[in-house]
Every structure is written in structure tokens, then in C-alpha cells.
């Protein structure tokens, strides 16, 4: 220990103590440097742009202005925890956190539960958190990994002309050698059993730049399809290796973290025809995106340094994240009144989201993401995934919204939740009693 540390900590004490006027505060734990910066900057740019848009267009939600503050996590768990602690009590208390990182979400889960602040895990980890009875403050909104995995198999079913035709087909699950990569193995195994296709798991050691031997193994196995569960550099590396061994790219189906422009462009020619899942469509054709461009960027208040990134996959995901956040605040305001709300009240709002077709029309997001209706028990609210194909320049939809196979996911979620509650020695919430 030393004088410097004490001086620094005392200085931080005073900084942390400063509070501002009563608004609705939304923490932005962004990552704009580090390995995942290119996605992070667009995602959080989109989210901030939407918050600014709501402020400029409607003067906030119900007259309550939205404020935000950024904190750089660098996609690292310890920095994420620091950001969580820094922002959680600021400006009247954080509404909800969206870290866009499974690791940070796990590390803040217990803290959030205690502080009663919801965590949005839109499109990523802990699939079993959709059971709101065990995970009161975690919201894997729209679609979880498990829902997506079942949608992938159903999409393949559509491609071969019906689920019954999957019988006897051979599918390889090429996954990132990490906790993230392994997360869908049990679901895919269950799907293989249900539909009688042959499933082979092939692991790519993290970070996934070297895949020569894996693709040789795939070539020997001669699968009909490859399900890609990739992350970061693994996606373009997989596509290039597939090109080398001559595996048709249109038979590769990746999950959504392999489905942004960064992933496809990096693979160049090899990416053409490649298919990936999606929970929020890209493009500028949606009225909400056009309005943001007009209102926010028109006033020179846009967050992106390059306007050209508006409408990219990660940007639109960020906008959707902003929309869900604001809609949750709206729902909570209906119950608790238009004032500064605390995290627990926002949690109620997130549990009572109802973004139906009519609301989507009003928001200008029809078809951008599936309809979302949450409840105390269902924190996912949708479970639909759509598939897109890279045509060398853009992502083009090649399917409708495919619903998760809940017959497969629900028993797995139940087993996982039981184990979790046992490990934690906790009691499940009684949703019927809460009204």
C-alpha cells in the first residue's frame, strides 16, 4: 500500500459522490477499444443515438429526460465490474445494464440481483435466464442462444423440404473452444435425437485463427451442413478454410455473432453465399433508422464518427437495444408514474413489455425485430430468429422469423434452472403470487 493509491482512491471517492438532477439514467458500458471495438462502437453508437432521438423528438419518456454516461469496459470482466459499480448509483440510479458480453453479465449477475438492477442480455448468454423465476433481473430479450440453435436446425429443415427430411443427414457443429462455443451443444444433441440427423461436434481452439485440420476433418466427414458457432476472427477464418477445402458456403449457417458486416467483409470473396442468424435486421429501410439519421445526425448530434455505419448490423442491434430499454421505461411509467424510476421498477417494465405489430408500426420498426411480449416467467419474450445470406455486399433475408422449438429448449431450461437454484441454494419466485 502506498500514498499514491490512497490519494487516488480519495479523489475517486469525491468523484463518485457527485450527483446530478433527477432524470432517467441509462448506463452505457461500452467497449470502443480492444479486440471487439469495431462491433462495440457501432452497437453502443446505435443505442446512444436512439436515446438522443427520443430526447430530441419527445423530450424524453413521459417528460422525463433520458441521460446516459459511458464507461469503457474493453470487453473485460474486471473492467465491466468496475463500470457496473461506477454507474449503478449515478444520477438517481441505473435503469438497466446491457454489457454485450457474456462474461461481464455473469460477473455482475449476483450484484444486480442484490442492487435490484436489471441486466439486458439481448441475444447472448445464459439461455436459461429466460426463466424469470430463477433469474429475476436477467433479460435475454428477443432470442437466446438455445432458441437460436433450434431455429438453425429448423432452417436447415426448411432448406431440405421439411423436418422429416433431416433424418439421416449429417451436420457438423463447428464451435469456438470456449464456454460460449460449447453453450449450444446440449440443445443440438437434443435436436439431433428428435429429428434423427447425425451430429458431429468439432472444436476450434480459441481464438480460432487456425482451422486447417478441422476443415480437413469436415471434408472427410462429408456433412450436408456446417453449423458455425463462431466469434470474432474465427468467422472469416472458417469461411476462408471452407473455400480452401471446397465446402459450399451456402451450406454454412452461423449464429448472429458471425453475422455482421465485419465478419463477412473480412473473409472477402469466401463469404459469398454464407448464411447467418439474426435477431435484428440491418439496413436503412426502417423508418426508425431514417428518422434517427434525419433528426439526430441532422442536428450534428450523432454518436458514430462515420455516418456510413448507420444501418449496419451492429448499429441496428444497438438501436433495438435502445428501443427495448425505452419501451421498458414506458411500461414501467404506466404503472409507477412519469418520474425517475429505480431499477426494480424498470425490471417490472421489462417483465411487462408488449411490443406487438401495432406498436412496431408506431415505432417504425416493423419486421426489424420480432414482436416481444414478456412476463414474469418468460424473460425472453419472443424466441424468433431470422436467417440472412451475404451476397458479397449486403445481408439478404433468406427466411421468415423462425420460432424456437420450445419442446426442446424448455426441458433443458428447467433442468438448468433446477441445478442453478440448487447450487445457489435459492428458492424460485412464485409468479402467480406477483401481480
Amino acid at each position, binding site marked *: 500500500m502506498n500514498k499514491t493509491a490512497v490519494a487516488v482512491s480519495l479523489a475517486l471517492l469525491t468523484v463518485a459522490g457527485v450527483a446530478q438532477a433527477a432524470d432517467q439514467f441509462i448506463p452505457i458500458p461500452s467497449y470502443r477499444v480492444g479486440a471487439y*471495438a469495431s462491433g462495440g462502437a457501432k452497437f453502443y453508437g446505435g443505442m446512444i443515438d436512439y436515446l438522443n432521438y427520443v430526447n430530441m423528438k419527445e423530450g424524453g419518456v413521459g417528460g422525463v429526460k433520458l441521460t446516459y*454516461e459511458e464507461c469503457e469496459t474493453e470487453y473485460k470482466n474486471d473492467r465491466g465490474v468496475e463500470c457496473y459499480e461506477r454507474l449503478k448509483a449515478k444520477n438517481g440510479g441505473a435503469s438497466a445494464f446491457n454489457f454485450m458480453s457474456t462474461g461481464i453479465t455473469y460477473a455482475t449477475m449476483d450484484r444486480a440481483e442484490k442492487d435490484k438492477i436489471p441486466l439486458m442480455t439481448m441475444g447472448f448468454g445464459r439461455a436459461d435466464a429466460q426463466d424469470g423465476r430463477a433469474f429475476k433481473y436477467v433479460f435475454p430479450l428477443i432470442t437466446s442462444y438455445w432458441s437460436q440453435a433450434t431455429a438453425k436446425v429448423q432452417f436447415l429443415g426448411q432448406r431440405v423440404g421439411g423436418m422429416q427430411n433431416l433424418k439421416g443427414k449429417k451436420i457438423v457443429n463447428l464451435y469456438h473452444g470456449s464456454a460460449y462455443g460449447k453453450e449450444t451443444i446440449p440443445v443440438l444433441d437434443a435436436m439431433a435425437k428428435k429429428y434423427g440427423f447425425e451430429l458431429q461436434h468439432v472444436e476450434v481452439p480459441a481464438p480460432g485463427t487456425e482451422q486447417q485440420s478441422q476443415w480437413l476433418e469436415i471434408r472427410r466427414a462429408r456433412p450436408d451442413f456446417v453449423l458455425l458457432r463462431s466469434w470474432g476472427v474465427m468467422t472469416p477464418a472458417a469461411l476462408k478454410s471452407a473455400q480452401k477445402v471446397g465446402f459450399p458456403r451456402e451450406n454454412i449457417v452461423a449464429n448472429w455473432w458471425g453475422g455482421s458486416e465485419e465478419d463477412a467483409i473480412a473473409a472477402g470473396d469466401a463469404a459469398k453465399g454464407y448464411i447467418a442468424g439474426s435477431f435484428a435486421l440491418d439496413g436503412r429501410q426502417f423508418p426508425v433508422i431514417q428518422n434517427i439519421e434525419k433528426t439526430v445526425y441532422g442536428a450534428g448530434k450523432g454518436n458514430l464518427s462515420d455516418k456510413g455505419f448507420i444501418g449496419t448490423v451492429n448499429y441496428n442491434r444497438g438501436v433495438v437495444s435502445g428501443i427495448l430499454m425505452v419501451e421498458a421505461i414506458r411500461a414501467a411509467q404506466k404503472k409507477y408514474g412519469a418520474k425517475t424510476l429505480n431499477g426494480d421498477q424498470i425490471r417490472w417494465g421489462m417483465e411487462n413489455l408488449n411490443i406487438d405489430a401495432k406498436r412496431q408500426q408506431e415505432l417504425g420498426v416493423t419486421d426489424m425485430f420480432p414482436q416481444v411480449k414478456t412476463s414474469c416467467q418468460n424473460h425472453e419474450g419472443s424466441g424468433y430468429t431470422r436467417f440472412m445470406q451475404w451476397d458479397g455486399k449486403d445481408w439478404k433475408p433468406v427466411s421468415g422469423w423462425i420460432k424456437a422449438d420450445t419442446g426442446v429448449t424448455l426441458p433443458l431450461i428447467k433442468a438448468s434452472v433446477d441445478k442453478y437454484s440448487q447450487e445457489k441454494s435459492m428458492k424460485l419466485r412464485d409468479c402467480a403470487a406477483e401481480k
Partner: protein
Amino acid sequence: MFYRESGQFKSSYAADSAILTIAQDRLFIAALLALAFVVLPGLGSDYLLSGILIPFLILSLAALGLNILTGYAGQLSLGSAAFMAVGAFATYNFMLRMPGMPLLLAIFLGGLMAALVGVAFGLPSLRIKGFYLAVATLAAQFFIEWVFTKFGWFTNYSSSGVISAPPMQVFGIAIDTPASKYLLTLSIVALMALAAKNMARASIGRAWMAIRDMDVAAEVIGIPMLRTKLLAFAISSFYCGVAGALYAFVLLGTVDAQAFDLHRSFQVLFMIIVGGVGSILGSFLGAAFIVLLPICLNLLGQAFHDTISTQFLANLEMMLFGGLIIFFLIVEPHGLARLWQIAKEKLRVWPFPH
């Protein structure tokens, strides 16, 4: 003027071999400990305690572990994060598979497991030295990370591989508030730092330093090479293992192999290089520099977020951080601990340096 030992006489062997021989130092450390143990848990905000001080203390402990191995015994290691991971996973499995095991015992056993693994990967140090040894420990880093990801048993077959730490208590007191977590960490770190300080001053520390400075000469004067080197690996890994267990249980609340990747090993290595190789104090100074400086820069940066693009700010922070590391290494290649020592020397003769 104030920092002068004149008039303080040592009249016993005990006084002569005390850690802090000067009254001013004793006073300063006592005040620091009082601040850390009494004032901060009471007055510090949640953010200060669990966002800043806990990670700082835990990584200080890891740096301390690496400093024993690299700074004192002269064995360059790039596997500190792997040994942290062993500590974390072992502690988790002890608690999971032996219900009712006290947390402190589990952490201790976790440290012991890390020590065992450390000894195993320390064996090559008897044959290879310097950069080549660093490469051998790099193998430990990759191998251990792979084992924990590959074999489901370690994570209790959790579908995501990331497992949540069970609730903690020590002597019947639940460790669930930032203050209690902070006090637990601080107590462990303070005790282990004291132990490290004493080891460094004792015969074992001298044996390490002899090996570091010239191993052939050390062997000639009768220092057993095998035992001393492996002991350095064991003790160093024990420290790292305890730090890893604390990192997983107290800081993150999850046990995740990816939290202990190569990046973490480098981070710990940079801590001792910036702080001071072969110095207990340096471990703390280095950890403070590496952990706290980016946070301070980020906090400062947020003050300008209305005027400058956040994208630019985030990158500027990284540049400043890198620049400061280079600056300090040029100003004082022996680390911040040496700067502190120089400051003390200057203070001793102040205000009449001649």
C-alpha cells in the same frame, strides 16, 4: 527534517531485525493499516470498495506471487494467470464437492493445488533458464486454460462453462456486502504480504536471490538448487492460486477460464516490471498503476464526453496509458518502488541536502 532516524537507537537484536526500523515508517504503516481496515470500510462507497480496491488488492497479491518467483528467484514466468485459474477452479470444486467446507480452508486448499501444479511446471526450470523458461511457462498457460475449457468436470458440466460461485461465509459471517468482501480480501492480502516480506528477508529469500544473481555460485556455496527453485515455484503459485480464488469468488462471482487468459499473465508481469522487480512494495505500486490508472483516465475522459467524441477519448486513454508506462520506465527502470525509495532518501536530508 521529519523523516530522520537520528536519536533512534537499537538496543536489542529484535529491534535490529524488525521490518520497520524507523519510528516514522512504523507510524506511517500503522496509519495506512488503520485507514485501510477501519476508515475505508466505513466511509468508502460501494464503488470504491468493490470497483477499485478489491481488484487492486487481488491483483497485488498475484503480482506479489510473481515477484517472489521472478523478482526474487529470478525465474521468468508467463503462467501466473494459469496458476490463478488453478486456484479458482480448485477452490470452487472443493466447495462444491465437499459441502460444508469453510471458505478459508477451500481457498487455502485451492492455493495448495496451484502450488502443486506450479511445482510440476517448475521442473523444467532446473534445466532451462531465462527466456526459454518463459516459453515453458507459457505452455502452462495454454495447457491449463485448455484443460478447464475442455473437461466439463471442472465446471460441474455447466452448459455455458461459466459457473457461478456459491454464497460465501467466514466464521458464520456472510460475505455478501462490499465492505465485508473488502475486509476479507484485505486481511488475506495483508497477512500474505507480511509473510512474503519475511520470507524475502529470511534465509529462503537470500537463497532465492543468490540463485537469481548467479546460480552456479549459489550451488557452489551449498544452496540446494532443486529444492530452492521448486520452493519458489510452489510459494509463488500458492500466492497466485489464492489471488485467483479471490478473483473468482470475491470480485467476479463466477469461475471462468477466460478470465485467466494470457492477457492476465502479461498484466501481472507488467505490474512487477512497472512496480519494481524484487520488491514487495513494488507489487502493490505496480498493481495500483496498472489497475487504477486506466480507470482514472476513463473517469477523466468522461468529463469531456460532451465536447470530444467518445470514440476518440477511448483511444486517447489507451495512448496515454502506454505513454505513461514508457515514461516511468525511462525515468526509473527499476520501477516505482525505486522511485519511492529515492523519495525517502531525499526526504531524509530535506531541507538541507548538502
